[in-house]
């Protein structure tokens, strides 16, 4: 029926090390469930970043029990950075070689349970900062340590690799952001997390996870839905960069005593610190990075800012990273099918209202304001001799205002929630859409403190409230600052 186990497996099975449960652990992690057949539960004590205690319980085949025993033996007493680096290959090695075919899952199972225990420990340490947001106090001094965010995709994998090759001490982290991850199951972590861990381990790097579902759910997903209810067009990547990703990476860096944080964004950090456009203009992500707080940007490295995407893929291929062939992710991560309308509709009750023209004349009915964004042309449901565009969404009266293309033209916008890297006066261009071209502008402070007015010499079409307005310097290369386009006009 099946291959025989090696003597090392039987030895661990018959005399397992470190069985049990810690009385007052600093972290608990479980993987597997009844549907899977196997269950592993690890309890850990982590003090001063050292794994001072580890105990486990396992229900599963001999391979699972032996793998848990070998893993406990490998991590007990080690520094967290060393413990989080223990890989499937390390486990295999201590079990005398590859497990019989079909039993390899045991390695993934026990590693996942241990890493979940580490995650639990870190999440407990993070407390409200990982739930409600906010910055933690940086305790680390400037050094060559870095926490690299790792999604499992090619960009983040090459980011970690480049940092490692540049001599940094790298720890990788994958964030659990929502329950719709690809390859989600009821038992183990989603495939994306397992894949990211495996990729990190193959590079010899420690891997951590943090559970940010609550934070992401509130600050990104809920606000995403809320924006549509307000008649705005949100950008969830901006919200994530503003409140979630960089803060969480910095938190982990502080915990581990590493100074830097890194992501696989295509951007550069210039003096100031300020954001600068990357070498690969086609992949430029400065537009979504404007809200990263200055004190975090000062600690941030964007290794990919110096490379073209084609080079990044080549690097991955040359180093044999399995991620090299993963497809580009384009959609909003928590709406993998790209159908954000249905996503919003599931969260809020849409109430019908009127479609009106600029003069207030009723042209038809619509099923809910959440279905509309400014600049939209399709799906308005009103026939007219010339093409109609949504020019405004008014949630309070449930009106959708439509007009002709030239009615979308604006000559100035009001921008709020500013984050400045340089003196605002340095602004010469503004970009108002992710893939839009920057247009010349002049800015001045608005009447309300913290709000700014951008004036365009030539009218601009398609500015949607809720989107970001990002200001660039005269040479167009550096981000001066950014903010959110307000619904109100100056």
């Amino acid at each position, binding site marked *: 029926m099946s291959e025989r186990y090696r003597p090392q497996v*039987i030895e661990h099975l018959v005399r397992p090390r470190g069985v049990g449960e810690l009385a007052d652990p600093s972290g608990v992690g479980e993987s597997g469930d009844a549907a899977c057949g196997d269950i592993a539960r690890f309890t850990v004590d982590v003090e001063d970043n050292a794994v001072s205690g580890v105990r486990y319980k396992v229900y599963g085949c001999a391979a699972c029990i032996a793998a848990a025993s070998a893993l406990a033996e490998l991590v007990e007493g080690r520094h967290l950075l060393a413990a989080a680096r223990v890989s499937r290959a390390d486990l295999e090695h201590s079990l005398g070689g590859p497990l019989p075919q079909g039993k390899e899952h045991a390695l993934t*199972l026990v590693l996942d349970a241990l890493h979940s225990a580490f995650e639990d420990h870190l999440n407990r340490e993070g407390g409200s900062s990982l739930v409600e947001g906010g910055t933690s106090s940086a305790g680390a001094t400037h050094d060559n340590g870095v926490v690299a965010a790792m999604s499992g995709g090619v960009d983040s994998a090459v980011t970690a690799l480049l940092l490692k090759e540049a001599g940094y001490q790298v720890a990788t982290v994958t964030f659990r952001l929502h329950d719709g991850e690809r390859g989600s199951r009821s038992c183990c972590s989603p495939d994306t997390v397992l894949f990211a861990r495996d990729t990190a381990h193959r590079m010899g790097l420690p891997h951590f996870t943090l559970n940010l579902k609550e934070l992401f759910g509130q600050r990104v997903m809920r606000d995403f839905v809320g924006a549509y209810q307000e008649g705005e067009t949100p950008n969830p990547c901006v919200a994530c960069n503003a409140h979630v990703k960089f803060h969480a990476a910095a938190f982990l860096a502080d915990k581990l005593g590493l100074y830097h944080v890194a992501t696989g964004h295509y951007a550069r950090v210039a003096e100031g610190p300020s954001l600068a456009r990357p070498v690969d203009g086609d992949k430029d992500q400065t537009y979504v990075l404007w809200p990263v707080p200055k004190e975090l940007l000062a600690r941030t490295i964007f290794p990919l800012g110096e490379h073209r995407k084609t080079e990044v893929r080549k690097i991955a291929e040359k180093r044999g990273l399995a991620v090299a062939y993963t497809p580009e992710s384009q959609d909003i991560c928590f709406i993998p099918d790209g159908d954000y309308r249905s996503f919003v509709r599931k969260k809020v009750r849409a109430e019908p209202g009127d479609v009106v023209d600029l003069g207030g004349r009723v042209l038809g009915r619509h099923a809910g304001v959440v279905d509309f964004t400014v600049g939209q042309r399709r799906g308005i449901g009103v026939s007219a001799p010339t093409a109609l565009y949504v020019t405004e969404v008014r949630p309070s009266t449930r009106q959708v205002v439509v007009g002709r293309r030239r009615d979308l033209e604006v000559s100035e916008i009001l921008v709020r929630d500013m984050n400045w890297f340089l003196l605002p006066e340095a602004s010469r261009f503004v970009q108002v859409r992710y893939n839009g071209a920057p247009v010349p502008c002049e800015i001045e402070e608005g009447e309300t403190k913290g709000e700014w007015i951008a004036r365009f010499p030539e009218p601009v079409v398609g500015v949607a409230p809720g989107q970001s307005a990002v200001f660039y310097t005269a040479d167009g290369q550096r981000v001066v600052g950014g903010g959110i386009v307000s619904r109100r006009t100056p």
Partner: protein
Amino acid sequence: MSHPVYLDNAATTPVDPRVRAAMLPHLGGRRGNPSSLHASGAAARECVEEGREQVAELVGALPEEILFTSGGTESDNLAVLGLGRAALPARRHAVVSGVEHAAVRESVRRLEREGFEVSWLEVDRFGMVDPEELADAVRPETSLAAVVWANNEVGTVEPMEELAKICAEKGVALHADAVQAAGRLSLDVGRIPISTLAISGHKLYGPQGVGALYVRGDTSLEPSLLGGGQERGLRSGTENVAGIAGLGAAARLAREELEERVRHETRLRNRILAGVAEIPGVHMNGHPEKRLSNNLHLTVDGVEAEGLVLVLDALGYEIGSGSACASGGHKASPVLLAMGRDEREAFSSVRITVGKDNTPDEIEGFLEAFSQAVARLREISPLYTPMES
């Protein structure tokens, strides 16, 4: 290290020295193809026919109703596929129990793919088929029924006499897999009107690689192996003379020693049952009385079978696992699921099967090792919390 204690006799039995003695002449000195006309051929033929008589006697059949195969699986395949493929176009319906051995189950599934309609019979929590349900399931177009005589996993003995009578009355050919039953139950096909019955050598202290199929005289079967027309044209291929000699000797010994073996096995099995009953959270599967004398099938709460089998192996005791490990991507035993057990229970089940050569001392040693192994694995298990006593 001394030999391990072998308690997996349902998987295979050791070859009896007397069986070995009957086989040895054919594995060296003697030669001859039973189909050859010369003296050597005639001697081989004689040996095959003697084996046929011995097997026929074990099951109460006529010698010409026995044909030899390569084992239980082939016998089951030949019977099920053979009966099914010989059925008239208007009678392509089968009634089959939900607790069949894979050799029968998969053959039936093959018939299904060939256009057969199949009614799968449910069983009770002991794995027992209800004769009334069988009777209800039979339709005018039913040509074939299959029920395992004694279950290979949980040891439950089915009410074969009643089932066979129903089938005979309704003109349905009944196949019985008697691989585990042979040598432990009296299988009198003269009295019990079964159409085909499968037997295996290596469950009877005979050699591996040889089996037999009883085919009632008036039954028509479509052969699977085609060639020289041996075995009444139902199973072409030169006969396994040494194997048949071994199976014949094993059948003779099984018949002669049946009562004694059953008494011995029952005593040892009951001792194990009494011993393990003292461990909390250990449950017996299968019928409490109507079960094979050598079989004890247990669910051990909170313990996965593979670990238990291997820890016992390390302690020198060999038993069988009820279901293969979930990590291996294998499925839980369909037999246990049919009996209403859940997957977790199925993965926590082991099969202990004693044999004629086991001794009471071995059993005492086993009981000690078993409770030790269970305790050790429960210490590891997150699914078992001892009840307050």
